[in-house]
């Protein structure tokens, strides 16, 4: 028996066994020491990091654990930005399903909504992330997504031969992004908002390739937001500054709409093209426009069944 292992070559004699045991315990000890050192240095780097790795999904936690986590987040964000930041987890309201309407006969493509959204939802300034993308289309060609451009830059809008189609998350009833997520870090809430748990997202970006609307965006770095521009009133699933390496998207301004306010893009729109309301409420603007106007959804052939309706008011 010719083996290269020096311990096994001479058979089972007492002294050799002793050194073999010694090596094993040495290895175990070394391993333990390394693990301790690694965990110590990781824990030293960021207090919440290890805790975040070990815990379960946010929605499955008890109320006390949630409160603790929100508290820790608030402390961390307040420290990072040097001002008071609050993180809430306002639950959905009963009997509410949100719907959004956008009048493409009115939209002038001025992009006020794009920047109001960045301001409201703490999107990264550098590198830039925009949740809303306004597509310019030729009137002659109609809605032709492949020929549209988001980089138009004329002196004044609207241009006579163009119309504009702002696109953000469509909050689908059958969201492809939710279906593909391997870790269930994104799901539909009872009020119809598709949310992401940024602490649970592994950054695989499957949802980005599944989304037919290009509505999801990736944080390639720690989001770059000057502390004086931070919007301090945040929601856990919404506009809190996201960590590095996770996906983010429009949440219908979850921190505003769950408290009754209109989304920021609705209020900023200078032509009033954006409408928002409860689809289940007969008195709401959404039900009126869906009864009275010509309504369509984007890429209806994919059967994603969006809650975002485009319409022509006139």
């Amino acid at each position, binding site marked *: 028996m010719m083996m290269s292992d020096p311990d096994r070559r001479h058979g089972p004699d007492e002294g050799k066994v002793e050194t073999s045991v010694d090596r094993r315990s040495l290895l175990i000890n070394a391993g333990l020491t390394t693990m301790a050192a690694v965990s110590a240095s990781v824990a030293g780097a960021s207090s919440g990091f290890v805790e975040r790795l070990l815990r379960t999904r946010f929605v499955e936690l008890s109320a006390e654990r949630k409160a603790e986590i929100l508290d820790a987040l608030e402390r961390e964000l307040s420290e990072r930005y040097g001002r008071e930041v609050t993180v809430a987890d306002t639950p959905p309201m009963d009997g509410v399903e949100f719907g959004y309407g956008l009048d493409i006969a009115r939209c002038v493509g001025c992009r006020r909504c*794009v920047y109001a959204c960045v301001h409201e939802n703490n999107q990264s300034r550098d590198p830039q992330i925009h949740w809303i993308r306004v597509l310019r289309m030729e009137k002659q060609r109609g809605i032709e997504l492949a020929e549209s451009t988001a*980089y138009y830059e004329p002196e004044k809008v609207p241009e006579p031969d163009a119309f504009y189609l702002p696109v953000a998350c469509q909050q689908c009833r059958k969201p492809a992004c939710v279906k593909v997520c391997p870790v269930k870090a994104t799901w539909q809430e009872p009020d119809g908002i598709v949310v992401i748990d940024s602490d649970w997202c592994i950054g695989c970006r499957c949802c980005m390739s599944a989304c037919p609307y290009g509505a999801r965006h990736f944080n390639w770095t720690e989001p770059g937001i000057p502390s004086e*521009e931070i919007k301090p009133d945040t929601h856990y699933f919404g506009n809190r500054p996201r960590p590095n390496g996770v996906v983010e998207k429009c949440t219908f301004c979850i921190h505003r709409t769950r408290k009754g306010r209109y989304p920021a893009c609705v209020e900023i729109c200078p032509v009033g093209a954006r409408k928002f309301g409860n689809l289940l409420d007969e008195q709401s*603007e959404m039900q009126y426009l869906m009864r009275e106007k010509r309504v369509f959804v984007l890429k209806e052939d994919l059967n994603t069944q969006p809650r975002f309706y485009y319409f022509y008011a006139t």
Partner: protein
Amino acid sequence: MAGDFDEQPQNARDSRDLLPGSSSLAVLLIVFISLSLLTLFSIVHGGAGHVASDAGGTRAFGPADFPEIEFDRTLLPEVEAGGSADPEGVYRVRRPLAYEDYYPCSDCHADLEVNLERRELVEMHDDIVLNHGSKERWCFDCHNPEDRDRLRLANGELIGFDESYRLCGQCHGTIFRDWREGIHGRREGYWNGAKSYQLCAHCHNPHAPRFQAIEPLPPPVRPQFLRAEAQEEVDDDE
């Protein structure tokens, strides 16, 4: 069968002629070298340079670059007070624009003699250009000659400037209906409670109502310019 075996060497020679070993290698080599040169060139000179510097989307802007735009909309105090608590919804109309400039009109007009003659205004209000059916319409179709602080409906009823939507709604009935339901025009406040409307005149100048073109905010940054250094490379090239 024997004939088949005889023809075999002939076939072999044909295929040798078709692709002679050394020259095919040379052709492949040339193609390979030129492709790798192209790739190298595009790596060195490519990326940012593919987009014309005036094409838009080469520089990242943020909301802070537009201090003139009020991104945090301030609500009317009564809307803020009403909140979402009011199930019926409190609707407030924002203060008429006319109040900012001249109102009350009677400050001047009370002492002036009423001139019902249709004419070009020269002494005062000469900035008003009537482009709203100007052949069929003039001042006193909407303004009330006796009491200038009021507007006058077609049926003779006098209304305040804060109810001007009733005046506009006399002709623009379908738009008026949409506005009342919240489909036309901007609303601010609470989707399930108190909210404020704007008057027609907040967006449409009643004397020339077509919505005026506005300057768009800049486009998003193109993916190849996401890095801050990419913009510096463009600047260096110029």
